[in-house]
Each structure stands twice: as C-alpha cells, then as structure tokens.
C-alpha cells in the first residue's frame, strides 16, 4: 500500500518536472521571439514615422523653395507642379503619420500641431502663388516670408523625430528587459533540468543499488540455505512428481551411497540398493504427492549401503516447486537406530528390573509369611508357658513356697516380655512393608493427641508444655501418629525425674521447603557419643530399671520418616535434655515430592 502511494507520488512529481522542463522554456522562447519581433516592428515603425515626418517637412520646404524659384522667374512647368506638390501630398502623409502614432497621445498632439503648421504654410504658399499670378510679387514674397516667420516647423519635426527616437529607446529597453527575463527563465529551467536530471540519476542509481543489494542478499540467503541443507546431519531429499530425485543433501548421499558431486536424477526405488523399495512406503509417498497427505514419523527398518539395518523415521510433505507449477516431495530421514537400540536396552533393563521387582515381591511375600508365622506360631508357645505356669500354680496350690512362686512369676513375666518383643518386631517389620496411605495430616492435632496420651499415662507429673502452631502435611496419618507418640512419649518419659518438666514442640521451614519439626525436653538427655545407636532396633541408652522400654520406638520413627522421604536426628547432653528433629519433604497429594531430591 505504502509503496504504491509512494510510486504514485513519484510519477506525479516526474510529470510535473517534465511539464516545468518542457513547457517553461517553450513559453519563454516564444515570449522572447515575440518580443524581438515586436522590437523589430518598433524599429520599422520609428523609421517610418521619422521618414514620413521628414518627407512632410521636405515636401513643405520643396514647395516653398519652388515657389521662390517661380518668384525669381526661374520656374518651369515642373517647378509649378512641385510648388503645389505639398498641398496634394501632405494631408495624405499626415493621415498616415497619425495612423501610425495612434497609440501615443503626445505624438498625436505634435502631429496635430504639425498639421496646423503645414496647413498654414501650404495656405501661405498658395497665397503667394495666387499673388504672383496676380502680379503682386512683393505680396507673394511677403507671403512666402511669412511661412517661415509665422509657422515654425523645424522644432515640431525635431520633436517628433526625437520623441520617436526616445520611444524607440524605451521600447528597445523594454524588449531587452523582456528578453533578459526570458533568458533568466531559460537559465532557471536549464538549472531545473540539470537538478532534475541529477535527481533522476541519483535516485535511479540508488534504486539500482538497492536492487543489487537485495539480489546479493537473496543470493546469499539461497546460498546459505543450500549450505544448511547440505551441512545438516539429517538426510534431506527433494523428489519430483515421478519420485525422481531433484536434490539430495550430503547426509542423504552418504547414507544411500549416492555420488554427492555428480548428482543425477534417480527414481527413488533405485536409490540405496532397494532401501526405498518398500511398497507401503512408496504408496504413502504417492499419497503425499497426489492427495497432499503429509507423512508423519513413518518408521521403517532399512538396510543402507554400509550394510547396517537402520531404524529410520521418515517425514514427507508436498511442496510447490518455485520455478514451475509442478509439485515436489520433500523427504527427511531421521536415523533413530541409536535411539531404537537404547529403547531396546531400556526394555531389556526394564525386563530385568521387573524380574528384580518380582524377586523383591517374592522376598516380601516370604517375609510376610514369616512374620505371619512369627505372629501366630511364636506366640502360642509363650502363651502356653504362661498358661501352664498358672495351671502349675493352681495345681500345686498350698504347696508352692515363696521361691517356687518367684520362679513361676519370672517364667510368666519372661513369656510376657517376649510376646511384647515379638509384637514390637512385627510392628517394625510392618512399617517397612505396608503401602503409605498419603493424605493431608494435621500435625497440630497429632501432637496434641500424643501429648494427651502421654499425660494420661503419667498421672501426677508436672509438665510445662509449649507447642507451636503446626502445619498440615501430606503423609500417612497412622505412621505420623506413631512418630509423635514416640517422640512426645519419650520426652515425657525421660523428664520423669524433673519436678517440673519443660517440653517444647516447634517447626520451621527448611531451605528447600521441607518442614523440620523439633521436640525438645530438659530431661535425662544422653551422651552424643552413642547417638548412632539411638535409632537402632532394640538399642537403648538407658537402663530399663531407670526408664522402662524395649528400644523399638525410635527405630520405628526412623523407618517411618525414611519412608516419607524425611529423616530424624537428635542432639543432647546428659542431664541437660534432648532435642529430636525430624524433617518431612514438602509434597503434594499425588505423593511426588515437590522438591526434586538431590
């Protein structure tokens, strides 16, 4: 649009310039010619006027002179005629003169004066001739003398001639001015022509330059795209409507054994020793050409010239040939052999992994069976030991002495204790096996619940609690309940010797969004030297007589947190209290940790 408008203006400007260049000089020249002609006319005119004037003066003087000759008696018939000539000729000449100077009132006035002077003198000459004929020579002489005395002609004649001369000068000057103006105009137009010519030359020069630049650029772009097509690692080829090759790039040539230097049109099925003779593929390619159906990611195994079976992915689409109406087929080949091999490898690995998983689940199943039988079969004898110790006590009745009674108590208690250990182990083992049931868990209410439970189990204790507001996290509620019950239960248990125990629960957000909970107390604490034993199964840092327990709680806590992707650690000092920290990764309900694990 803009270009069109610009073009239109340019055309209009050029037309205008042409008009200026052609019409102005023409007009100026014409005006100048007219003026020159006029000047010549004026020159003729002035000469004519002057000639007429002098002729009149001559005729008057001649008639007077001839009259004198007659008076002197020196006349002849021609003299008589000439003496009366002025009367015959002068009026006509005057009329002519008046006609010539009609445009100048001054001259008319002078001519009027000349007329009366000439009339006067003619009349006096006539009078003189009449008197002479009557024989009055003196009167005639007087009349003739009067002509000069009464009617002064010379000044008038000179006036007319001078005026005419002046007019001529004036007019000539006007003409000269006109001419010089015309020359100026001509000069200007010549200058304009020059300027226009320069403009035209410069602009066309620029246009040509631009076009040349564009052509160069286009040429470079074409060259560049050719280079790219040739250099790209992916095989690319262009085929005509009969599937004969128009262009192949280096990668294509290499893959299918074509001579890259001297490429000649080859039908596709003949390329690459029959790598392209796949009927289904040729059918699809024809579909691309005839029906403009794009071919997307067609997978094929080809044996290429290097004798390798390659997995290739073929893409093809129809494009319009630039220089004709014909269609062309653009074909790209992606060699995905490596990927296919990798996939195969992945599949194999997956297969192996599946095998491993099957093994693991076998192991898990065995473990389950094992713990089942532990739970069922191991407990039964314990029950029997305890049961029959009781029966024995009943059976013996009064016959049991104190020592015997003590033994029976130990037997019963030991069975009891072993049953408890079995139960604990089963819980621990189950924590490692069962699936996590992830759901939003309100840590606040779990902590409060654990606190209430611990307080109920330790009546009479004085404990100062400080529980910070705790967040809702995603986790297995039952497992996290176990965590809180263990940590808070421990805090209560190990502050048993304090008159007023201080237990605090806190939370903070770690750098990667993890939650880090802390349960701290001012109880018995422990020596950090043994901290690594803290979370082991049935590991204890205190004597059971001081603090009862079987050492499974923190092992459970660690296992639970590990399963949640978190961890637990502790810091303590003997008799200065302990601080237990555990972290939970921030995660959404789908169970994926929102933070990528390192």
């Amino acid at each position, binding site marked *: 649009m803009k270009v069109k408008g610009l073009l239109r203006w340019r055309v209009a400007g050029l037309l205008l310039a042409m008009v200026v260049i052609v019409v102005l000089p023409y007009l100026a020249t014409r005006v100048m010619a007219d003026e020159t002609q006029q000047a010549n006319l004026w020159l003729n005119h002035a000469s004519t006027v002057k000639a007429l004037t002098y002729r009149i003066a001559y005729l008057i003087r001649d008639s007077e002179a001839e009259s004198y000759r007659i008076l002197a008696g020196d006349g002849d018939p021609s003299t008589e005629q000439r003496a009366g000539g002025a009367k015959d000729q002068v009026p006509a000449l005057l009329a002519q003169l008046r006609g010539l100077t009609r445009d100048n009132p001054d001259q008319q006035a002078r001519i009027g004066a000349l007329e009366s002077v000439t009339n006067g003198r003619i009349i006096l000459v006539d009078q003189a001739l009449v008197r002479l004929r009557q024989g009055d020579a003196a009167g005639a002489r007087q009349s003739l003398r009067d002509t000069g005395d009464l009617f002064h002609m010379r000044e008038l004649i000179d006036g007319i001639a001078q005026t005419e001369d002046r007019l001529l000068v004036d007019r000539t000057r006007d003409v000269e001015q006109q001419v010089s103006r015309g020359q100026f105009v001509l000069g200007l137009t010549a200058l304009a022509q020059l300027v226009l010519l320069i403009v035209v030359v410069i602009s066309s020069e620029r246009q040509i330059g631009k076009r040349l630049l564009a052509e160069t650029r286009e040429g470079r772009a074409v060259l560049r795209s050719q280079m790219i097509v040739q250099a790209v690692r992916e095989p690319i080829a262009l085929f005509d409507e009969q599937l004969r090759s128009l262009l192949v790039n280096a990668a294509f040539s290499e893959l299918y054994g074509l001579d890259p230097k001297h490429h000649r049109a080859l039908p596709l099925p003949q390329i690459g020793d029959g790598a392209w003779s796949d009927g289904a593929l040729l059918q699809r390619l024809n579909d691309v050409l005839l029906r403009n159906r794009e071919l997307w990611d067609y997978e094929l195994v080809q044996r290429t010239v290097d004798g390798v079976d390659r997995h290739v992915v073929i893409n093809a689409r129809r494009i319009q040939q630039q220089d004709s109406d014909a269609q062309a087929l653009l074909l790209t080949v992606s060699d995905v052999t490596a990927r296919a091999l990798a996939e195969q490898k992945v599949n194999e690995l997956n297969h192996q992994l599946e095998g491993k998983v099957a093994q693991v689940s076998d192991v898990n199943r065995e473990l389950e069976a094992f713990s089942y039988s532990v*739970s069922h079969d191991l407990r039964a004898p314990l029950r029997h030991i305890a*049961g029959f110790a009781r029966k024995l006590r009943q059976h013996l009745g009064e016959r049991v002495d104190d020592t015997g009674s003590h033994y029976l108590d130990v037997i019963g208690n030991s069975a009891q204790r072993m049953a408890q250990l079995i139960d604990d182990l089963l819980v621990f083992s189950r924590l490692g096996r069962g699936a996590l049931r992830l759901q939003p868990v309100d840590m606040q209410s779990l902590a409060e619940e654990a606190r209430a439970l611990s307080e109920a189990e330790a009546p009479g204790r004085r404990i100062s609690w400080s529980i910070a507001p705790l967040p809702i996290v995603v986790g297995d509620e039952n497992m996290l309940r176990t965590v809180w019950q263990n940590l808070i239960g421990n805090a209560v248990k190990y502050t048993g010797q304090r008159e007023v125990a201080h237990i605090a629960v806190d939370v903070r957000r770690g750098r990667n969004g993890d939650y880090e909970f802390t349960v701290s107390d001012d109880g018995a604490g422990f020596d950090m030297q043994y901290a690594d034993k803290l979370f082991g199964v049935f590991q204890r840092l205190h004597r059971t007589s001081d603090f009862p327990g079987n050492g499974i709680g923190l092992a459970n806590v660690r296992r639970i947190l590990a399963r949640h992707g978190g961890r637990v650690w502790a810091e303590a000092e003997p008799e200065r209290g302990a601080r237990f920290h555990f972290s939970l990764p921030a995660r959404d309900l789908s169970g994926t940790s929102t933070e990528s694990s390192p």
Partner: protein
Amino acid sequence: MINRHIRTILLVEDSMADAEMSLDALREANLANPVVHLEDGVECMDWLHCRGAWATREPGNPAVVLLDIKMPRMDGLEVLTRMRADEHLRRIPVVILSSSREESDLARSWDLGVNAYVIKPVDVDQFFTAVRTLGQFWAVLNQAPEQE
C-alpha cells in the same frame, strides 16, 4: 431358656495346649452347655453336618463355634466360608480365636461374616478372662434364631 435345648459350644483348635487352657477357662465359667473340642476344620464340618464320627450325634447346631485360624487340613477361614455359604449353618455365631493380629486375617474374617474376632492374649489372666467371657456371652446372653 427353659424350653430351649441347651446347645453345644464348639471349640475348634489344633493346639492341644491352647485347647486345654480354653477348656479350663470355659470350665471356670460354669456353663451348662457341653463343650466339644475338635482338632481341625474337617472335623468341624463333619460335626456340623453330622457326618463320619458324628453321624449319630444328637442333631442341632451349636450355640457358638470358637474357631482357630491356623489349622491343618482345613483352616478356620475355610470353615467360616463354607458355613456362611451353607443354608443351614450360615446363622451359627462364629468367633475367631486366633494368635494372629495380622490385618489381613482380621479383614478377611470380617469380610466372611465373622461374629467376633478375639486375639488370644499371651497374658494368662487376660487369656482366661477372654475365653470365659466369650463362653458366657455366646452361650448364655446371646439370642440366636431357632434353627432348622
């Protein structure tokens, strides 16, 4: 109660020690009901159907079946399944009395329509109390519909 036939309590338990303790406990409960001890699921089904060794027994369903899970030949859950599928046996109260506190056992038992699931306590006193209470509840307090 007066017009009512005093029904048997069936104890199905393969462990002789457990059985002895359970029988002691039931005895301590002073129940009028006879207690029959059977050693596995097959015997139990025979007894219920008056087959084999029990072909000549007085007909009638038991007041309750106290059933162990883990037994040779036919386990407790199998017995429970068959009973619940049987037109004549499906209303008999069944109490699982097991050492197993496995969640899967609990879930399956309840799915199969058990009337109670009791884990045998290792603690002797608790054990005796549990079995005694069971006997009293199911044989005396519980009312089951007239059968057959």
